[in-house]
């Protein structure tokens, strides 16, 4: 609440200044200076400006740049802020009509108002919690209402709306952060084409940043601040950018290690953008810490996953063909019946790619192909090992920290092995499976054709089965677990003469078993599983989902 009030006050001040009177100002001098504020000064670069203006027939003088005092953490930030309001010509200031002696050159960013809802979310959560406790104590604990399954379903629909809002928020924030940080990566990459010049260090120091969380724990991070000058095209410039990727880090020694290379008065190498000589860096390196820039991408992916899960959940289930279980049977009898939810038939879609015109059979596709599996494992392995590498480099001087990281290193090595395995599996012979129907009913026979694309001679044995299994997903702590149990394993019976290269077979789905079913956490899945043994190579282990429908209406009525 207090933080919200503070943010609201600052927002009101900035927004209010937009209603101040704009007046021409005569800038007497304007420059960016670096204060020697010590290690705790996080904004040592200050816009130093003096200007005069007329208002209401009186003359005034001011040196106030903005409400924040014109203080910035980098020379570039202060320089650009000054350039935005004055580049040597005419300047304008904004005069407080209630107190004309107060004026500013820069309003401050009005986008701060977008951050106001963030603490308000926490205020709302707290208020909702208090209200829920109050309501519960006033009305009494209602075991009966908690026992109504229908009301829980309704609450789940309501909570899905909350997840939808959260999904939108994470998607927007993740997208903005990803774009912003991607620009920094691209800028760092572009520096490889910049011109090398000799710069002179004006001053160098380490800046300490301290923050305290809600529990009162204080964390301290450090970053080197190097202020330097250079000449390009006979023009003198100043800068303080080390590179585009550095972040404040808890590793104090690393910050001082960088600092040791840049003493005041020392000539150093800098890289200047030939298209914009004001921009320069001291380092063009790209280290493992760049992987931390992937975190906003994960936030974005999480937001998109939440949106997909909430927005498209109701449409992820399709009806069985030939049996409209929904419309025909939803309404019966009296007119005051009402439908509360989506149709009762929850069938996942089979993954048919196309229909073979020669046979009329449907070619089945896997949900995730070998390339997809390899890319997924590779991405995770690179991300995991990159993060672990960053922590290893920071833990190099502490044996305890190094010992703590051993399990994570082991997992990283396993992931590398999994990458190699999946890469080899990409070069396996491919099995093309075709069926006469992708949505068979219970009791029906599925005709199966298969063909090996690639070197079938490498396969020493091949088996095809139609398998049915339960899948139940649940939470254990912060992890999501899935329990599986197979209840059917039906061999695909073949002709008397066959070959591994190609063949045909059939399998009949029993009557007394369960059809395909898919809800949020519980599923009944039917798949054709293909297992092929390849000596000294990853085996073929593919699966193709089928949608097994319930008995046809006529079969039940008969």
């Amino acid at each position: 609440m207090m933080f919200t009030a503070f943010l609201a006050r600052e927002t009101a001040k900035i927004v209010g200044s937009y209603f101040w009177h704009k007046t021409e100002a005569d800038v007497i001098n304007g420059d960016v200076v670096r204060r020697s504020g010590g290690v705790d000064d996080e904004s040592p670069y200050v816009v130093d400006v003096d200007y005069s203006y007329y208002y209401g027939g009186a003359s005034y003088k001011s040196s106030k740049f903005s409400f924040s005092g014109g203080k910035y953490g980098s020379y570039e930030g202060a320089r650009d802020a000054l350039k935005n309001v004055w580049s040597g010509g005419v300047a304008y200031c904004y005069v407080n009509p209630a107190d004309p002696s107060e004026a500013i050159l820069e309003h401050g960013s009005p986008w701060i108002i977008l951050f106001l809802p963030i603490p308000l979310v926490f205020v709302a959560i707290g208020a909702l919690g208090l209200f829920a406790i109050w309501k519960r104590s006033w009305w009494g604990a209602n075991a009966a209402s908690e026992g109504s399954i229908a009301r829980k379903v309704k609450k789940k629909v309501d909570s899905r709306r909350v997840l939808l809002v959260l999904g939108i928020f994470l998607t927007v924030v993740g997208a903005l952060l990803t774009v912003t940080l991607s620009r920094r990566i691209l800028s760092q990459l572009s520096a490889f084409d910049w011109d090398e010049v000799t710069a002179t260090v004006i001053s160098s120091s380490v800046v300490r940043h301290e923050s305290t969380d809600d529990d009162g724990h204080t964390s301290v991070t450090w970053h080197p601040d190097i202020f330097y000058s250079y000449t390009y095209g006979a023009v003198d410039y100043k800068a303080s950018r080390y590179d585009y990727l550095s972040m404040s880090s808890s590793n104090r020694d690393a910050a001082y290690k960088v600092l040791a290379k840049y003493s005041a008065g020392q000539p150093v190498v800098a890289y200047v953008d030939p298209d914009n000589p004001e921009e320069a860096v001291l380092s063009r390196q790209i280290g493992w810490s760049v992987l931390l820039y992937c975190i906003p991408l994960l936030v974005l992916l999480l937001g998109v996953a939440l949106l997909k899960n909430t927005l498209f959940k109701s449409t992820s289930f399709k009806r069985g063909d030939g049996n409209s279980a929904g419309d025909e049977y939803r309404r019966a009898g009296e007119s005051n019946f009402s439908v509360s939810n989506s149709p009762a038939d929850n069938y996942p879609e089979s993954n048919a790619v196309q229909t073979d015109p020669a046979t009329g059979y449907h070619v089945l596709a896997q949900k995730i192909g070998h390339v997809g599996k390899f890319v997924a494992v590779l991405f995770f392995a690179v991300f995991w090992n990159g993060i672990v590498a960053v922590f290893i480099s920071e833990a190099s001087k502490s044996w305890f920290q190094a010992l703590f990281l051993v399990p994570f290193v082991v997992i990283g090595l396993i992931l590398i092995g999994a990458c190699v395995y999946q890469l080899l599996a990409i070069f396996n012979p491919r099995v093309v499976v075709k069926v006469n129907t992708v949505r068979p009913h219970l009791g029906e026979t599925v005709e199966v054709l298969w063909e090996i694309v690639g070197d079938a001679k490498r396969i020493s044995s091949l088996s095809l089965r139609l398998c049915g299994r339960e899948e139940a997903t649940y939470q254990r702590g912060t992890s999501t677990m899935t329990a599986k149990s197979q209840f059917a394993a039906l061999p695909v019976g073949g002709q008397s003469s066959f070959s591994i290269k190609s063949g045909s077979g059939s399998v009949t789905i029993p009557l007394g078993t369960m059809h395909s079913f898919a809800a949020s956490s519980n599923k009944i899945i039917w798949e054709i599983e293909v297992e092929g043994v390849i000596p000294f190579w990853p085996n073929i282990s593919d699966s193709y989902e089928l949608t097994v429908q319930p008995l046809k209406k006529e079969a039940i009525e008969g």
Partner: protein
Amino acid sequence: MNELSINLDSKECRPGQVLNGRVVWRGMSSHGSLEVHLLWYTEGIGTKDAEVIETITVEHAGDMGERKVSFRLPLSPYSFNGTHISLLWCVEAVGDGGDAVVREGFVLAPDGKVVELKEVPGSKASNPWTFSGVNT
């Protein structure tokens, strides 16, 4: 003290069948409404799923009364009992703003009996149609 009960004509139902029943209530709030839901839900190790198929609302139910209800049952999902998941059907009546809840279960399956799913070994043996060593 409120009382709420449901009586169903049949506990073993087939898909597409009409299920008739009777809801009786007594001692309810005189201005409350009564809701009768046809729904299925899961039980077992997984997070519970549920879906309300149809709802009958009795406005101004009064403090006592009875009402005949009738639902046309859908073709699926069947009631089943597996290793990790069970799916159950029921008619649930909720009254008095949620203070009174009663549920009467029934089976929905082609033969009116719960489909039993027994776990089979996951091994790849016992397949007479395993093709080996014949490459053309």
